[in-house]
């Protein structure tokens, strides 16, 4: 039986790979010298070490304010995520409700696993490419922030929502944009320079989270199961 105790290490200086390195060596204790007295001493040390451990846990049992638990469903109202928390991707809008995204696909290219799929279209009024549908796959998204990092228009940001549990993975495919049409900057410019702003606005079409391209089935996306004939819900 060793004489225990995990005291401080021994400081030393050694040469490793031609560098002088300051090291601190683990304490080993010493083996028990023979004799009945040292045996009793080592038993006493052993029992004391057990009691020390029990003191620590007792400190938690009887101590005040030792419970650190946050009660999640009960504290939902007060629970706040950090401001940079990567919860859910969303498109930013200006004060009038127009989005900043113009469908430039920087994010789609930056995305490491094609979680963002952008469909664009050509606006008949100003003949510019614009966002038709911004599909975001929450089921594959890795929250790596690459899309937001590369976005030249600050059109994307993180929302704080973390409650995403669903019964069917097809529900995790989102269409983020609420409308298809020109970005806020173009509309503003059209209003300012009076370049057919009303006609431009008239090209706006509503898009939902579940728009045309991605129905609940989402069959076209790789890896997403199609809505089959069999009832998958009962197992």
């Amino acid at each position, binding site marked *: 039986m060793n004489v225990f105790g995990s005291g401080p290490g021994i400081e030393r200086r050694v040469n490793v790979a031609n560098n002088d390195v300051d090291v601190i060596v683990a304490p080993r204790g010493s083996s028990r010298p023979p004799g009945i007295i040292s045996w009793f001493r080592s038993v006493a040390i052993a029992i004391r070490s*057990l009691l020390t*451990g*029990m003191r*620590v*846990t*007792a400190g*938690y*049992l009887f101590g005040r304010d*030792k*419970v*650190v*638990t946050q*009660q999640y469903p009960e504290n939902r109202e007060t629970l706040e995520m950090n401001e940079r928390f990567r919860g859910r991707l969303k498109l930013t809008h200006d004060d009038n409700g127009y989005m900043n995204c113009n469908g430039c696909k920087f994010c789609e290219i930056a995305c490491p696993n094609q979680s963002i799929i952008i469909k664009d279209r050509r606006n008949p009024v100003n003949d510019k490419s614009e966002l038709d549908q911004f599909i975001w796959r929450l089921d594959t998204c890795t929250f790596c922030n690459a899309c937001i990092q590369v976005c030249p228009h600050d059109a994307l940001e993180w929302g704080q929502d973390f409650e995403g549990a669903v019964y069917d993975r097809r529900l995790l495919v989102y269409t983020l944009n609420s409308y298809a049409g020109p970005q806020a900057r173009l509309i503003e410019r059209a209003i300012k320079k009076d370049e057919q702003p009303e006609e431009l606005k008239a090209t706006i079409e509503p898009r939902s989270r579940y728009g045309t391209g991605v129905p609940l089935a989402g069959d076209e996306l790789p890896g997403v199961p199609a809505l089959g004939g069999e009832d998958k819900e009962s197992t």
Partner: protein
Amino acid sequence: MSAAIVLLTLAERAAASLEVGIWGTAAWLAVAIVAAIGSMSLLGMALVLIERKVAARFQSRLGPMRVGPHGLFQTVADSIKLLIKEDIIPEQADRILFFLAPTFSLIATLLALVIVPVSPTLHLVDLNIGVVFFAAVSGFGVLGILLGGWSSNNKWSLLGAMRAGAQFISYELSLTLCLIVAVLFAGSLQLSEVVASQADGWWIWRGHVVTIVAFVVFIIASTAELNRPPFDLPEAESELTGGFHTEFSGLRFAFFFLAEFINMFVASALAATLFLGGWMPFQVGGWDTFNSVMAIIPGPIWFAGKVAVIIFISMWVRWTFPRLRVDQLMRLEWKFLLPIGIANVLIAAVIILSGLYFFPVGN
């Protein structure tokens, strides 16, 4: 056989007390059994809940909170779920033994429970060889574990069962030596008389250091017999994925689970009875006012308090210490506890022969 003893005793008592013939005896028996099972499951559920709440506090968290106020009915939910859970018998398992194993475990516990003296009146069976009976039926419990490990046809289970067997046989020695110390002091094998002999002072006070040592060794050995951490080698989660009960599910697993917790209660109750005076209040020789105040508190509460303290210590230890290794466990018993236990019995004999009790009250 022990089951037969209990049943016969129960029947005798019933017949003697009611004098209503065979049917009355049967009815009394049925009531007693239902009451025992009911109280046992209630006790088990309460103990599991207490364990979980206490563990949570040790670990600076809250524990079950959402079923009932502060999770009061958590274990009720667990029990119902376990009752209605599917019961799987693995294809390769020995079906008969697989069925018997948890039942043995639970029956052993039930048998041990009936002899626990809660108070002079609340004492289901007062056998004249109560201490021996306890030693016998607690040996019965390991049979369930061994059978469970064997019948599962799983190497991990078998390893766990073998560990349990080795552990149990070893620690049974120390346990019995401690029982002998208590019996020597009390001069009787009947638990009610053991308690009565402590009216003047609990043996843990009156037996010098001998009973204190016996008490501590009894607690250690019973913890080891119960497979509770730090001696939970037969079911060591991180080593054996559950040990002997790896293959048991649903109700059968619940039997093992329940048996473990009731056993903890029984062992604690025995320790309280033998060393801490059972339902006897705390008495100090000469302090008459103090003694009378103490005597106001009813016996069952004294008993429950003592058991609670011992159970708490058991939980405290459980949630603090790492687990021992197999060979270390054996070393602890054979090189450490057993010599101490034997020396303890000899010293106890000397003390009793010379009548050198500590603060001899009254006589």
